[in-house]
């Protein structure tokens, strides 16, 4: 395993591209991403704007990309002609991921994706319990998830990730176990498991926030259960919320998400589209979340409105720590002088939460430390 000493953007260019496709059929109550409901007529215009923005930023990208990620929103809700035009116009990459909602994945869509060079699909299954899906405002049924997986397999897309959510109000331990079993039965290459968060300002938090807080203690062991079930059947818990099949069970392939690994390793990335974030050489910017404004500006051939944040050296080091410690690989301390609180490191080591490796040149969280990763990281940071 390689320590992540190398910084992003080989040969001066970012090798990771994110493209935001905001369109959704409806907005889920818990979601706080930048999404747009309706506006079917604007898909083509939006794709044109994305490609204009890409052209404007082409210089920050390396000649060859490692990864492209189409996130949303619901990228697969984008009108097929527009979606395929976009995919064909994007620079090629070793890993091209598209996020999809199960109910949108038809055999035709699966073929379209495969035909446009998509190598990986991330399916938002969330749960297999109809009443919990309803609680989350999800439109897909459990059968939609299964059908989507089969359609993708038939189209020879051989890297499928399932997203699951746990900690849903009313979710019993048996529900959790059933979800994990259902997901595993589909044999996904990759699984992401997120605890449901009450994000401020969402409809969901308004309706269920108090309930979520009440059940927090009762459900705090669900995370352990998730890890236990998935690792028991040969998945690697490679990031706080992400699991993939071990190479031995995947023809020797490393199934970690290359795109997301780039974030956790502190690499540079370019983000296109409304609300998309880019981080390039110590500058981070977020595009305007407003569709109309984005389209108008790019139609005029100008860069979209952006909020820019300059990342100081100490901030960059802190971020390297907070991101790097999410991974199961040791974090090289090379270049991180001053980012860590030395007494905290010792204290947490005594508590069996962190491990110093390679003659103290790298730091890793122990298994228990990973379950407490947020608090441990807060403490470790100087």
């Amino acid at each position, binding site marked *: 395993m390689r320590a992540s000493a190398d910084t992003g953007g080989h040969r001066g260019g970012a090798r990771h591209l994110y493209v935001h496709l905001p369109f959704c059929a409806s907005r889920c109550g818990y979601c706080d991403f930048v999404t747009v409901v309706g506006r079917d007529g604007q898909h083509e215009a939006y794709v044109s704007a994305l490609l204009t923005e890409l052209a404007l930023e082409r210089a920050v990208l390396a000649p060859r990309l490692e990864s492209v990620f189409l996130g949303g929103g619901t990228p697969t809700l984008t009108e097929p002609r527009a979606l395929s035009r976009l995919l064909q116009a994007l620079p090629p990459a070793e890993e091209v991921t598209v996020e999809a909602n199960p109910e949108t994945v038809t055999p035709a869509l699966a073929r379209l994706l495969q035909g446009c060079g998509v190598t990986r699909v991330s399916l938002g299954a969330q749960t297999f319990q109809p009443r919990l899906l309803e609680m989350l405002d999800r439109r897909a049924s459990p059968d939609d998830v299964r059908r989507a997986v089969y359609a993708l397999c038939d189209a020879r897309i051989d890297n499928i990730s399932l997203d699951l959510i746990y900690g849903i109000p009313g979710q019993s331990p048996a529900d959790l176990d059933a979800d994990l079993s259902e997901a595993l039965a589909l044999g996904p290459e990759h699984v992401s498991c997120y605890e449901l968060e009450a994000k401020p300002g969402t409809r969901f938090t308004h309706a269920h926030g108090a309930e979520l807080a009440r059940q927090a203690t009762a459900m705090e062991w669900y995370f352990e259960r998730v890890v236990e079930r998935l690792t028991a059947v040969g998945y690697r818990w490679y990031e706080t919320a992400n699991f993939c099949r071990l190479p031995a069970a995947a023809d020797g392939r490393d199934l970690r998400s290359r795109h997301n690994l780039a974030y956790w390793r502190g690499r540079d990335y370019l983000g296109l589209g409304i609300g998309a*974030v880019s981080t390039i050489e110590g500058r981070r910017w977020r595009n305007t979340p407003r569709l109309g404004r984005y389209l108008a500006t790019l139609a005029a051939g100008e860069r979209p409105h952006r909020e820019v944040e300059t990342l100081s050296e100490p901030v960059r080091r802190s971020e390297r720590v*907070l991101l790097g410690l999410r991974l199961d690989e040791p974090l090289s301390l090379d270049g991180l002088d001053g980012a860590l609180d030395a007494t905290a490191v010792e204290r947490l080591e005594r508590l069996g939460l962190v491990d110093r490796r390679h003659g103290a040149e790298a730091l890793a969280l122990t298994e228990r430390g990973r379950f407490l990763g947020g608090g441990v990281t807060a403490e470790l940071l100087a």
Partner: protein
Amino acid sequence: MDQNRIRNFSIIAHIDHGKSTLADRILELTDTVTGREMRAQVLDTMELERERGITIKAQAVRVNWKGHELNLIDTPGHVDFTYEVSRSLQACEGALLVVDAAQGVEAQTVANAYLAIENDLEIVPVVNKIDLPQADPEGAAAEIAELVGDEPGHVLRISAKTGDGVAAVLDALVERIPPPRGSAAEETPPRALVFDSSYDQYRGVVAFVRVVDGSFSAREPLRAMAQGTQFESEEVGFFAPTMRAAEALGAGEVGYVITGLKDVSRLRVGDTLTSEQRPASEPLPGYKDVKPMVFAGLFPTDSDEYPDLRDALERLKLNDAALFYEPETSQALGFGFRCGFLGLLHMEIVRERLEREFDLDLIVTAPNVAYRVLSKAGEEVEVHNPAEMPREVERVEEPYIKASIIVPKDYVGPVMELNTERRGRFDHMEYLSEERVLLLYELPLGEIVLDYYDQLKSRTRGYASFDYDLVGFREGKLERVDVLIAGEPVDALSLIVHRDGAYARGRALVDRLREEIPRQFFDVPVQAAIGSRVIARETIKAKRKDVLAKCYGGDITRKRKLLERQKAGKRRMKQVGSVEVPQEAFLAVLNLDGGKK
């Protein structure tokens, strides 16, 4: 002035029964102040006194009435200042006992009336506020007569507010109160009782005195007999109501002596002044060094304010000889002071003055009393802080009080129940009227200091009136209860409780802490223990999960800020061993206000 034409008196009244208003009317009626000078309640000078309607420092005013010199010696209105009250009373031959016509006799009236009777004062009973629509002058007169053993018909009925009957009060003072009986002879060695003092920034300690024998004048070398302090009188005089210098203060007169001393503790209330040249052989009786009985830690909320708190206490101490303080360091609360007070009101007053006059934001820990401890080694020590209590003790004594409680008869049951819970010993009960009952109890002061008064008020729907008097130290089965967080004793949380209450208090503390201390990365046992015996235990279970669920390219800034906030929160924590405890957790358990909830 011929002693036969001098009358020295105090006014004894419950808070709000009209003492200050009556004093104001007396000043007006005797032309001591003109209408223009008249402010309501001229005698209460401090802002705080005016607001709380109580008098903290006794003062003395000279008025003239029909060829007589009357000295009104104002007494502090509360039991915490019993000693000052008793010195004030000792300076008098008589007392006006004022009772509100609508309220009747209250516990404080009883306590102070008994003090006056003990001091052999002639009591002139007065029913005030007869102008109020709800006044019951006859009922109040009957109660007061019962209390002092007088005829109801002998009780004066007045309205200090309208002035009705006030002249008759002055006449009664002259008629009923005996003149002073000291020796006015020139050759008699002079003696004067210091019944109070105050501190003037420019002139130093001003002693309020009652001359008993001989006379005192300015530029005279004097000596305080009990303390041995020597000084030269810079000026003598009297209050009318402002300071008026005089050539001399003669036998039987009341006035002030400016001492030039720069520290009130060098001239204590109760001491006897005499001449350095012609010293008296015997001091006047009754001097005692008042000792604080109630102790609490005072800590600045913001540790940067520690020097300000120290300066403020120094300045308060100049004017308040009874205030005691010494530096205290607490793991939980940092640097502060352990302060000793005469009682609860004294503590409240000091705290309010610190917060108001010195603009300090304070944490006041739950108060405890002074304990006298005989260690196994045979050493006797006085303990002011539970954390200092030796673990191995032979005997512990605690202060006891005699409590007077007056309640409507329907509430006798609840009051008795409360007193039993508080280890009270029933002493005496009597009907003041058909409706109202006086209960006398002996109680450990330690059972009173926390929330007794609140409990009494709530169990009697606010009808109870309560006062107390210290009666001395008694042995008690007292235990030191320590609180341990993850095996580490927390000094600030130690307490001394009676064996019978130890379990419940320990349990309550442990439960409260379990709620207040956030979960850590490891199990944290919270224990209450007597010595090595654990009497209550709870475990704050280790956190099992603490992760930020998602973190991708769009979330990094937000997640970083979240962690920075979490980190900042940790900096405000207090470290107890390896456990991080928010200061708020200590406050919840320790703070006086928190404790009252």
